[in-house]
């Protein structure tokens, strides 16, 4: 079987074409594949569609989806935010979006997570009460179940997923640490090609208890270990 462990982040993202849809795991930091995103930035692919919780940010020296947007590589964002999660903090993305310079699809966070899950689960559509009766449901089919209005939402797949985990074995079985998990497991299932950066060295198969695998290896295509000089997740003030 093909070796899934790649020597560098650049090798792992080398084939991402212009126009690709790319899922980025991560929630408020943890789970963000910052090293793979940095490599994608160097690689140069453009007209990307990003699927992520937020469009990210920039200007604070941290690499996330915002770095791709800042460099003009992104045509479309599908997310639970176009403005900053913290209403008092401005997001540079907001200005671009409000000025009509970039496209976005805004949806409830649970709808985002469930649409991604559906894509990896062979479920083309489902009904959710979230967003019913609101502006986000405009143009969408609605239907009443149990006396309550629901919105029909469709599966959201992607060409690539860039995710971060704590540890992988050579088969690609993954474990996440705490809040690092967030979108990783569902994105790994929903993307055609799943690329993961891991904090710890790759272990042999059998080193991870089968009961404690969070993402089975058959969903994982490429693994890169974050080297000692790679980007690590750190609290803002460290």
């Amino acid at each position: 079987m093909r070796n899934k462990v790649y020597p560098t982040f650049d090798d792992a993202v080398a084939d991402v074409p212009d126009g690709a849809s790319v899922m980025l795991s991560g929630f408020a930091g943890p789970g963000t594949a910052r090293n793979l995103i940095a490599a994608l930035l160097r690689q140069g692919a453009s007209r990307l569609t990003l699927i992520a919780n937020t469009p990210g940010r920039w200007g604070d020296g941290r690499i996330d989806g915002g770095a791709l947007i800042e460099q003009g590589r992104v045509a479309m964002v599908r997310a639970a935010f176009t403005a900053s999660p913290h209403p008092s903090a401005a997001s540079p993305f907001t200005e671009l979006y409000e000025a009509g310079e970039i496209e976005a699809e805004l949806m409830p966070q649970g709808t985002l997570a469930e649409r991604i899950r559906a894509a990896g689960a062979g479920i083309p559509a489902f009904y959710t009460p979230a967003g019913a009766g609101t502006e986000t449901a405009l143009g969408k089919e609605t239907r009443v179940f149990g006396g309550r209005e629901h919105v029909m939402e469709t599966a959201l797949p992607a060409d690539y997923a860039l995710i971060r985990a704590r540890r992988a074995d050579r088969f690609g079985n993954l474990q996440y640490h705490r809040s690092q998990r967030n979108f990783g497991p569902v994105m790994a299932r929903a993307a055609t090609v799943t690329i993961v950066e891991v904090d710890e060295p790759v272990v042999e198969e059998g080193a991870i208890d089968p009961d404690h695998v969070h993402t089975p290896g058959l969903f994982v295509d490429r693994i890169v270990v974050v080297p000692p000089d790679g980007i690590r997740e750190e609290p803002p003030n460290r």
Partner: protein
Amino acid sequence: MTEQRPLDRQTMANRAAMEFQDGWVVNLGIGIPTLCSNFVHPDRRVIYQSENGLVNYGPLAAEGEEDPNLVNAGGQYVVEMAGMAVQDHADSFALIRGGYVDVTALGAYEAAANGDFANWKVAGARGGGIGGAMDLAVGAKNVFLLMEHTTKEGKPRLVERCALPVTARGVVTLVVTNLGLFRVAPEGFVLEEIAPGYAPSDVQAATDARLVVSPSLREFRRAG
């Protein structure tokens, strides 16, 4: 005449937290709501849940003691509690929509007398920030709003009907502002508790919906 003393943010949060019952699963939104976890019930256990997958997490982490991979839904570093569990994002929202959250306490721009509320989009904007609010609003058994009674410019935030795009319809059960505590009933906002020094007419004057004054109106309750 007593001096008018609107509640500060922590006191508002404390008052809302006093409503959390033993064993309740509680989700706290960004802003005033996150302050609720500073209120510790001596004899009740409250289980905090966050959209990003934590169940039963603990208080905010002290500076220098952060686990870089352990944050709540507001992105704040928290500490691990004995009995904590981690889920992925889809399972976390399954829990939320599945009806296991007893209360979500959220911030809001507007609360309406019919139980609608608006907290994701400001006037004139093309987009906004939905986050987990729409799922929480329809999934939680109770929706509490914690908000300043008026904007900085003095414009009422409690209204007859929302002018801003709503987050969810008919779901709000309790509103705590710096001026009062309101149950949302079929007849509209019922003023149950009031800030020190205020008369119901003062609160009504700062409100764009008709208030019903509870026959058992009292001053804001405090813990202890």
